[in-house]
C-alpha cells in the first residue's frame, strides 16, 4: 500500500480537486507543470542553494539529552525553529516561488492564519522582487500585530478577510476568490498540504527535505536511517507531511500526529479534526473536516493559531483512516506545560504548535532505546504574548 498521492490526486479516498470551473485553468496549469518543473536540474539547484545559504539548512537534528532522561527514551528534535523566519513554512514558500517564476507569474497571493506563512511568503517575494498580497482574517490581524508589521516591512500588502468567521478559513476563501479574479498573472502559494490537487502533493514534496535530512543525520548519529517514531503536530499538516515523507511507505517507522484538543475534545472549543471531523469538502479537497450536520464548516479553536484549521490535509485524513499514523489530541494546558518543560530542560522556547507534539511524552510511554524524532516546527518568539498571559510572566 502506498501512502503517497495517486495519479488522480487522491490519497486513498481523500483529495481530488473539487473546484469551481473558474479555478480549473489555474489549477490545471499547475498540475500539468509542477512535477516537471520540480524535476528540472536548474530548479533543484536553485532550491537547494537557497535552502542552504538563505534558510540555513540543513536544520540540526538535536539529541535532547535532558528531555530524553526525563522521559526515559531517546528524543531527537528536528530544529525547524532555527530556519530563517522561524519555522518550516519557508521550505514551501521558497519552492513555490521558484515554481511560480518558471510559470511566468508576476503576482503572488497567500493566506495566513497566525501570520507565519504570510511572513514566509512576503520574505520570498521580497527576495524575488514579486508583488505580494496576503489575505488574513480581520480577527487574526488584530491578535497577531507583530507578524502583520513584519509582512508590511517586507513589502507585502495585507488584506483583511472580513467574510464569515474572519479567520484562517476565510482568509483562504478570499485568496481563492482573488485567484478566480486574476487567473493569468497570479500564483497562489498555499501554506499547507491542503487545497485542490496538486497542492497537497506539491507542498509535501517541498517540505520533504526535512525527512530526507533526518535520514542522513540519523545515520551519522545512530547508524540507522530509520527512527522508531516520528512525531509532529498537525493543523493543515505541512510540517507533519515534511517529517513523515520519506518514511510514509516504511511501516517500521511509526508515525504520530498530534492535534490540538483546545479546551478539551468535547468542550466545543477544539481543533481535533480526526476525532470531531467528518468526510467532506473544504477548499477544494475531499478530506476530514469539522462541520455541522448540515455541512456548514465550523470554526475550530486552539490556543495555537497555527493549529486551528477546520480540516486536515487529505494525506493525513488517509493516514488516519488507514491507521498508518496514530493520532493523539493534546489540550492547551498540556501543550503549554510541555513548552515550558522544553525551556527549562533544553533552553529552547518552542512555538506553541510544536509544544503540542512535545506534550505526548506525559502519557505515551516509549522504550528506553526507542529513537523518537519530534518535529520542532517553529520557535516561540511569536507566541511570547500567549506564554506571558498564560503563565503570568
Amino acid at each position, binding site marked *: 500500500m502506498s501512502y503517497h498521492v495517486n495519479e488522480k490526486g487522491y490519497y486513498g479516498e481523500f483529495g*481530488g*480537486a*473539487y*473546484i*469551481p*470551473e*473558474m*479555478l*480549473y*485553468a*489555474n489549477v490545471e496549469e499547475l498540475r500539468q507543470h509542477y512535477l516537471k518543473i520540480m524535476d528540472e536540474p536548474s530548479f533543484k539547484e536553485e532550491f537547494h542553494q537557497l535552502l542552504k545559504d538563505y534558510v540555513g539548512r540543513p536544520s540540526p537534528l538535536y539529541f535532547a539529552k535532558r528531555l530524553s532522561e526525563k522521559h526515559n527514551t531517546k528524543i531527537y528534535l528536528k530544529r525547524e525553529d532555527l530556519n530563517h523566519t522561524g519555522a518550516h513554512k519557508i521550505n514551501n514558500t521558497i519552492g513555490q516561488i521558484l515554481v511560480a517564476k518558471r510559470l511566468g507569474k508576476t503576482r503572488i497571493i497567500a493566506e495566513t492564519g497566525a501570520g507565519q506563512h504570510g511572513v514566509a511568503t512576503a520574505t520570498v517575494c521580497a527576495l524575488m522582487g514579486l508583488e505580494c498580497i496576503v489575505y488574513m482574517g480581520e480577527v487574526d490581524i488584530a491578535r497577531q500585530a507583530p507578524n502583520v508589521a513584519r509582512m508590511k516591512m517586507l513589502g507585502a500588502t495585507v488584506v483583511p478577510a472580513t*467574510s*464569515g468567521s474572519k479567520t484562517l*478559513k*476565510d482568509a483562504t*476563501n478570499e485568496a*481563492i*476568490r482573488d485567484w*478566480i*479574479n*486574476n*487567473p*493569468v498573472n497570479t500564483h497562489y502559494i498555499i501554506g499547507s498540504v491542503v487545497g485542490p490537487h496538486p497542492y497537497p502533493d506539491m507542498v509535501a514534496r517541498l517540505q520533504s527535505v526535512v525527512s530526507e535530512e533526518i535520514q542522513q543525520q540519523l545515520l551519522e548519529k545512530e547508524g540507522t536511517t530509520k527512527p522508531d517514531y516520528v512525531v509532529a503536530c498537525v493543523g493543515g499538516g505541512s510540517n507533519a507531511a515534511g517529517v513523515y515523507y520519506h518514511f510514509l511507505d516504511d511501516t517500521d517507522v511509526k508515525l504520530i500526529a498530534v492535534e490540538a484538543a483546545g479546551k478539551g475534545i468535547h468542550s466545543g472549543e477544539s481543533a481535533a479534526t480526526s476525532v470531531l471531523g*467528518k*468526510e*467532506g*469538502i*473544504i*477548499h*477544494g479537497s475531499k478530506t476530514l473536516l469539522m*462541520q455541522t*450536520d*448540515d*455541512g*456548514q*464548516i*465550523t470554526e475550530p479553536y486552539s490556543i495555537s493559531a497555527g493549529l486551528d484549521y477546520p480540516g486536515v490535509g487529505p494525506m493525513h485524513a488517509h493516514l488516519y483512516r488507514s491507521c498508518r499514523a496514530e493520532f493523539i489530541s493534546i489540550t492547551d494546558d498540556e501543550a503549554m506545560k510541555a513548552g515550558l518543560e522544553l525551556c527549562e530542560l533544553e533552553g529552547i522556547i518552542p512555538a506553541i504548535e510544536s509544544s503540542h507534539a512535545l506534550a505526548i511524552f506525559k502519557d505515551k510511554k516509549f522504550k528506553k532505546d526507542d529513537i523518537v524524532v519530534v518535529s520542532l516546527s517553529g520557535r516561540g518568539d511569536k507566541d511570547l504574548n500567549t506564554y506571558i498571559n498564560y503563565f503570568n510572566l
Partner: protein
Amino acid sequence: MNRINQKLQENKKIVSIYFTAGFPLLEDTVSIIEKLQRAGVDMIEIGLPFSDPLADGPTIQGSSTIALKNGMTTHKLFEQLKDIRKTVSIPLIIMGYFNPVLQYGVETFCAKCAETGIDGLIIPDLPVDVYNEEYKTIFERYGLVNIFLITPQTSEERIRYIDSVSNGFIYMVSSASTTGAKSGFGTEQTDYFKRIANMQLKNQQIVGFGISNKETFEQATQFTKGAIIGSAFIKHLSQYGVQNINEFIAEILS
C-alpha cells in the same frame, strides 16, 4: 420532458433570477419564488446557502451568512418548498456547494429534489469528471438536469466535453471573476460570447455574472439563449425588500 428543456425550446430569451434561500428573512423563500413567477421571469435558481462560498463575491456571501444565521438548512429548504408546485410552474433549479449536498446524501438529495419538483442542479464545486464517474446515473434516475459552468479560460476541448455530459444548458460565466465583481461587458466578453456561439454546441448557453439590468441583459443575450441575474437582485432585495420584486423584473423585461 423536464421543465428546463421545455423552457429552452420556447422562442424567447430566458430571464433567470438567482436568490439565496432564507434571505432577507427565513420564511421569504416561497413568496420570492411566487412573486418572481408573477413578474414574468422564466426560471429561478434557489441558492442553498453555504458557510464558505468560494465562487461568490461579497453580495452573495453576505446573503448566505444572513440566511444561515436566520436558520436556513437543507431540511428547512425542502420543507418550505414541499407545496411549491401547487402554485409555481416555471423551472426551478437549486444552486449550492457540494459539501451540504454530500452531507445530506447525494441520492437522498436528488430524491428529495424530484419529490419537491426541482428540475435541475448547479453545484459549482462538483467537477465534471467526478459527476460523470460517480453521480450522473443518480441525477438521471431522478430526472434532474445538472448544469455545468464554463469560463473564458475554459479550453475548447473541455467545453466540448462539458457539452457532451450536459443535458440542459451550459452556464456561461461572463468573465474571470467571482459573482457580482464586475458589471457590464466589453469587446472581450462579446468576442467570447460569439466564439462559443460559433461552436454550435448541443446545449444552449445562458450567461451569468455581470448582468444587473436591461442593458447588460440585452448585451449578454445577443449571442446566447438567456441570462442569469444574481447579485443585483440580492442587492435589490436588501434595499427594497420582497414587496418590490415586480419593479426590478419589469425594468429588465421592459
